């Protein structure tokens, strides 16, 4: 079936099977491999992207469900060579170790800060509960999100 959606401000149209998952549409059809497949069971959050601005796990969604809608992946955050404030905060606070969970963490954090621009540490920890970091680098990830919130440049 023919699927068309806006990905990072560009319309992307491909013929795919109805059973194609959104994450495969993004990685294999669109060639955007910044979005990772981790657990493939909607537990780890590595595949998180924004659907019309809201965080979703792209391994547990059909591309067909996103037909006609707008997707933002990690590749779509930076503007004119400038990192997004959440990316910048992850850089400054060393909010990553191996980096595999990072794209999902950053996308979730962007959505979290839109929904709650002034989160407490507990809000951030609860807001990221669907994300696993196998390096256990949670402390700096939480500090990065709080740092991005303090910078005031997100929402």
């Amino acid at each position, binding site marked *: *079936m023919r699927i068309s959606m806006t990905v990072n401000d560009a319309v992307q149209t491909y013929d795919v*099977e*109805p*059973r194609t*998952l959104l994450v*495969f549409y993004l990685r294999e059809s669109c060639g955007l491999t910044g979005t990772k497949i981790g657990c*493939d*069971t*909607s*537990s780890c*959050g590595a595949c*998180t992207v924004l*659907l019309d601005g*809201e*965080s*979703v*796990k792209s391994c*547990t*969604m*059909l591309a*067909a*469900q996103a*037909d006609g809608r707008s997707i933002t992946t990690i590749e779509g955050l930076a503007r004119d060579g400038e990192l997004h404030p959440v990316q910048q905060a992850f850089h400054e606070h060393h909010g990553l170790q191996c980096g595999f969970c990072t794209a999902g963490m950053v996308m*979730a954090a962007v*959505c*979290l800060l839109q929904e709650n621009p002034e989160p407490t540490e507990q809000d951030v920890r*609860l*807001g990221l*509960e*669907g*994300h*696993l970091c196998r390096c256990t680098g949670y402390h700096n990830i939480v500090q990065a999100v709080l740092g991005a919130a303090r910078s005031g440049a997100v929402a």
Partner: protein
Amino acid sequence: MIPAQFEYVRAGSVEELIGALTEHGDEAKILAGGMSLLPLMKLRLATPSVLVDAGRLSDLSYIRDAGDHLAIGALTRHYDLETSELLQRECGVLAGVAHEVGDNEVRHRGTLGGSAAHGDPASDLPAALLALDATLVAQGPSGTREIPAGDFFQGFLETTLAPDELLTEIRVPKTGTDGFAYQKFNRRAQDWAIVGALAAQVDGGWRVSLVNMGSVPLRATAVEGALASGASVAEAAERAAEGTDPPRDLNATPEFREHLARVLVRRALEAARS
């Protein structure tokens, strides 16, 4: 993991959706948010040959004040429930339990109707609908019918919905911001409850319901009866496992689940009454 092949039908209206169900019968499954169905399809535990996508029926996403109750569209998402000021004010317990489902990403996709129709005894929201004595409205080829929550859940992943029926609305009483507490015991933050216990004040009495203590969500009637007869919270909570048939799996034995039920009911009642 990739689901088995299926034919995809995107419904443009409730009538179109019921038409597709009538045509394909048992072979078809309704896709709402997909938070329960898609994982089962990826594991090939569910292999519907036709998937009827209800996701564009935005008419079925609403929370309305209907006088003596609240009417909630079946496609209202958990995120909409937890953030609705109307629901927080008029039925705080449902907003509170919705906040405990899965994680933020799941709540952006999962729907109240989808969770109810899936009929998983380990899900949070069915237990809330049971405690609230909610009414579920189903539409089929011959019209609509109203189903009390107590009759809706029939068995493991089994409800009273016919293959050609769509859940359209859920009606819940106005309980205001009255006391409630949900205790969910799990190993990782976003996991299903190994056992869950909900205590809520409804119409001046205490309702207690249990998650994952049998093949369907259950009311802890022995606890409710004991409280109504003046028993203390500690005494009443000791009866939490009566009439249950908890499953055995990798996470817990039935005996451990019975212990958890007694502890979690006591904690829920203490928190809800404080």
